[in-house]
């Protein structure tokens, strides 16, 4: 073998090693990127599936008749106007006169019943807490009218919890003082 051939061979070997070394360095840079992309892909798939699922869940829930019932029974806001118009309409329908004063009082958190507090599921805590709104009012009228009013109140879509009733005579009729409670978020 000639001297120049030996030099050529050595150069070839050197270039090969240098090339392989550089390639392995480059490959080491690509490897974590590949792993990162794979993990991002998985994360993205999970999130997209989750979004698809919550969209479907929400659509199914919105179509369910229970959804509208629950929105009325336990609304997001106190809906004072709805309460007032309901009481007024029902009192009139049963021949009762609604009192001139209707009091609303939001119950403080410490006063809330522990069993009505929203539960925590796993480690997640619900950001929504059920609030209780007490409504105090009185109606004047006969007993049958009061029974009809009471029935409508108890079977209304908005959930009314009757806490106290005081019946006292008022001229030829009765004055019925009621303390009720509704819920909202």
């Amino acid at each position, binding site marked *: 073998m000639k001297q120049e051939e030996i030099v050529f061979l050595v150069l070839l070997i050197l270039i090969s090693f240098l090339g392989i070394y550089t390639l392995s360095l480059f490959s080491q840079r*690509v490897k974590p990127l590949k792993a990162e992309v794979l993990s991002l892909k998985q994360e993205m798939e999970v999130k997209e599936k989750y979004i698809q699922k919550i969209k479907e869940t929400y659509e199914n829930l919105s179509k369910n008749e229970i959804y509208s019932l629950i929105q009325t029974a336990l609304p997001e806001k106190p809906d004072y106007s709805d309460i007032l118009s309901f009481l007024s309409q029902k009192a009139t329908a049963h021949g009762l006169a609604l009192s001139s004063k209707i009091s609303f009082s939001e119950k403080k958190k410490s006063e809330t019943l522990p069993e009505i507090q929203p539960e925590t599921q796993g480690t997640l805590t619900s950001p929504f807490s059920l609030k209780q709104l007490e409504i105090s009012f009185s109606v004047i009228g006969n007993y049958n009218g009061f029974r009809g009013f009471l029935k409508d109140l108890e079977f209304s879509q908005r959930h009314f919890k009757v806490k106290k009733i005081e019946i006292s005579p008022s001229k030829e009729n009765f004055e019925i003082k009621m303390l009720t409670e509704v819920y909202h978020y």
Partner: protein
Amino acid sequence: MEEKFEEGLRTQKILSFLFFATFLILIFSFLFLFVSQKSLEKKKKEYQERIEATKTKEIRELEQKIGLIQTQLRDAEKIGKEKYLVQKLFDFLEKNKLKGIRINSAEFDFEQKNAKISAEGPDYLSVAKQLKVFESLPEIKNFSVSEVSLEKEGKVKFNFSFSFKEDLIK
């Protein structure tokens, strides 16, 4: 001499071939890795954008709405279990009130499950019968009479109180 020259030429050719082959392999490998890296970087950017797109206001609102519905369902179930109908107590009183007895005033506390009633009857005997009925009812507990009085008109007024079992209004 000629043979040596030919052998030297063959070795040179082989070495040249090896050199170019190695060079080409290295070039293609670098190209492959470069293209892979660019493609991975592109995919990474795309996935990051798609992940970011899942954090929109709309999705957050949807999550909030579903969270609210879940809470509403849970609370509705609890409230449903606790629900009572106060009119059942009135049905019960009407059913057990004897003829001639009139309830004048009453106070009901449905959380404490107790009642204070003021009523009147035509005579002592009717009132006694009425009290006997209430005393014997299994749905009523702690029945007590606080006052019985004969009024000027001859009517007998009586005040009583009791507590009632939860089943009565459930």
